[in-house]
C-alpha cells in the first residue's frame, strides 16, 4: 500500500511537471471565465425581468398545443410537467433559471465536462504509450514493484486528474458565478416534477448530480483510452479512437435505436439521465440494466489492460 502511494506520487509528479497538463487546466479556467463574460456582457438582460408574464404566455401556448395535436405519451408527459412547474414558479415566486444568475451560470458550465473528458482522454492515452515512446518503460519496470501496481497507479492518477478538473470546474464556476452575478437567488431550489406533484430540491446537489451524470461517459471513455494505450502502445491511436467514439458514439447509437440489440452498445447506456429526465433510448431499458452493462464494459476494459500490461514482453 505504501508502495502504491509512492507510485501514485511518481505518476503525479510526471503529470504535473509537464506544461501540457497546466495548459489543459488553464483552458478549462479560461472557458469558465469566457462563458461568464459572455453571459454578463453580451447576453440580453431584459429576458428575465417579466418572467411571470412570459411563463403565463408559455403555459397558454402549451395548453393549446396539448388540445390541438395529441402527442405521443412521452411528449405529453413533458408538456404536462412543464406547465406544472411553470405554475409552481408563478405561485411560489421562484424565477426560472437563467444564464445571468449564479445557478444558471453553473448549470451552463457543467457542459464543460465535455472538454474535461477530452483532456482526460488525452492524458489516459499517453499514460502507458508515452513510457514506451520515451523508452522510459524499461527503467520503470526493472524495480521491485509488481506491474499490477504500476498500471494501477497510472490509472488512479488519470482518474484523479479528471476528478481534480471536475472539482476545479465546480469551485471556479461557483467563484466566477458569484462574482459576476452575485448571490441573489442562491436559496432558490431546483424544481422536479414527480408523480403529479412539483417538489423542491437542493440546487447544489442538483448541479453535482449533473456533473456526476456527465462523468459516467468520461469514466468509460477514459478507461477505453487507457486500454488502447496499453494494448497498442500508441497514444495517437488511443486518443483518436476514443475521441472519435466520444463524439460519434451517441449519434450512431441513436440511429441504431430501432434495433433491440442496440441497448447492449456502450453508448446507449452512458447517459443515465435518460432515466431521470427523459425517455430510454430503447424501450424496456432501465437504470439497473444500464448500470450492469456499464459495469460489464468497465470490467472488460480494465481486465484487458491489466492482463496485457502484465504479460507482454517489453522490447521497445
Amino acid at each position, binding site marked *: 500500500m505504501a*508502495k502504491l502511494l*509512492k*507510485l501514485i*506520487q*511518481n505518476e503525479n*509528479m*510526471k503529470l504535473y*511537471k*509537464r*506544461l501540457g497538463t497546466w495548459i489543459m487546466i488553464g483552458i478549462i479556467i479560461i472557458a469558465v471565465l469566457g462563458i461568464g463574460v459572455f453571459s454578463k456582457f453580451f447576453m440580453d438582460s431584459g429576458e428575465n425581468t417579466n418572467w411571470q408574464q412570459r411563463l403565463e404566455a408559455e403555459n397558454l401556448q402549451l395548453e393549446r398545443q396539448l388540445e390541438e395535436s395529441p402527442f405521443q405519451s412521452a411528449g405529453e408527459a413533458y408538456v404536462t410537467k412543464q406547465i406544472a412547474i411553470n405554475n409552481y414558479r408563478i405561485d411560489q415566486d421562484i424565477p426560472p433559471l437563467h444564464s445571468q444568475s449564479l445557478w444558471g451560470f453553473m448549470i451552463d458550465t457543467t457542459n464543460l465536462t465535455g472538454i474535461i473528458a477530452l483532456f482526460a482522454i488525452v492524458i489516459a492515452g499517453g499514460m502507458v504509450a508515452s513510457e514506451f515512446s*520515451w*523508452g*522510459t518503460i*524499461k*527503467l*520503470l*519496470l*526493472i*524495480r*521491485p*514493484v*509488481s506491474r499490477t501496481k504500476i498500471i494501477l497507479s497510472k490509472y488512479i492518477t488519470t482518474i484523479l486528474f479528471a476528478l481534480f478538473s471536475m472539482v476545479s470546474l465546480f469551485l471556479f464556476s461557483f467563484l466566477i458565478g458569484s462574482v459576476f452575478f452575485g448571490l441573489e437567488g442562491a436559496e432558490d431550489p431546483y424544481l422536479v416534477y414527480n408523480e403529479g406533484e412539483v417538489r423542491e430540491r437542493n440546487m447544489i446537489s442538483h448541479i453535482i448530480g449533473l456533473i456526476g451524470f456527465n462523468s459516467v461517459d468520461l469514466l468509460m471513455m477514459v478507461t477505453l483510452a487507457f486500454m488502447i494505450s496499453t494494448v497498442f502502445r500508441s497514444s495517437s491511436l488511443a486518443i483518436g479512437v476514443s475521441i472519435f467514439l466520444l463524439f460519434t458514439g451517441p449519434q450512431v447509437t441513436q440511429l441504431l435505436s430501432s434495433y433491440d440489440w442496440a441497448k447492449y452498445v456502450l453508448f446507449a447506456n452512458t447517459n443515465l439521465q435518460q432515466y431521470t429526465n427523459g425517455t430510454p433510448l430503447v424501450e424496456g431499458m432501465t437504470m439497473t440494466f444500464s448500470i450492469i452493462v456499464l459495469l460489464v464494459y468497465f470490467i472488460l476494459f480494465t481486465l484487458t489492460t491489466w492482463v496485457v500490461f502484465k504479460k507482454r*514482453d*517489453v*522490447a521497445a
Partner: protein
Amino acid sequence: MEKTPVAELINVKKRIGKTTIIDDISLKVYPGEVFGFLGPNGAGKTTTIRMMVGLMDITEGEILIHNNSVEKNFEKAIAHIGGIIENPEMYKFLSGYDNLVHYARMAPEKVTKERILEVVKLVGLEKNIKNKVGSYSLGMRQRLGLAQALLHSPSLLILDEPTNGLDPAGIREIRNYIRKIAHEENLAVFVSSHLLAEMQRMCDQIGIIQNGKLISVESVGDFVGSCSKKNVRFQVSPISEAVKVLGAPYDSLITGQGDDYIDMTVSHEHIAEINKLLVLNDVDVYSIVTLQSTLEEKFLEITGGGQ
C-alpha cells in the same frame, strides 16, 4: 573460486515466433567480478539482458539472482539489480534530480536524500543535476543512467553498452569506475559491448556470444598481461635453422611459418626464452611482433575480421 554466484543463467532460451534468438546460454557471474558479454550487433546481448531483468519472458531455462528466480520471484530477484538497458532514457521534462527521486521512490529500501546526492557526486553530475534532462548531452545521460542504477546499492550491476556515445575520457572514467566498484565493493557487474578492446580493459571474464549462442568464456587474466597467450611473429633467418632449433621444445606452439617468419602462440615470458634460444643458435632475429591475442582472433573470426 569458492564464492557463490550472484547471477546464474541455466540453459536459457528465447524464441520469438519460430526463430530462436537465444539458444541455450548458461553462465555465472560472481561478486567482485566484471563479466563482459561480447558479441557483434544482433548477437542477442540485449535480449539476454532483458530476460535477466524481467522485461522479457524466458522461453526455456531459468535465471537466478541470489537464488531467486527472475520469473517466479521477480520482486526479490530484481531488488538486487541495478541496470541500464540500451540507452538510459529518462524523463526529459524532469530534472536529473527529480528523475533520481522517481527511481528512489521505487527502491526496495528507503533511499535517503544524502544517498541520492552521494551517487550524483560519484558520477560527477553535481553541476547539472538540477537542470532538465532534456538539456543533457549523451554522456551526461549515461552518467545519470549509472546513477539511477546505483541508487539502491545493488549487488549486481547490469549494463548494456554503458560507454555507448561517450568520448574517450568519459569511456576511461566509466571503465575505471566500473572496475573500482566491482573490486572494492565486491559488486558483480555484467556488462555488454561489441567492442573487444574496451572489454579487455574492463573485464575479468569475457563471454563471447554469436547468433544467440555462447561460444566461449575466458578469463582476461592479469592486466599487466603475463599469463594470457598471444600470437607472436618471429622474423628470422635462416628459417630452416630456426625451425630446427625451436621444433623440439616448442613444436606444439608453432602455428604457422613463411619464407622468413615463424608464428607461435606463446605466453609473455616465452617470448624472451625463444629469442635467447634463437640467438644462441646463430639464428638472426630481425623482429618480434605481437599479432592478435587469442580472444581477438576468436572475436574477429566471428565478426568476419577487419576492424
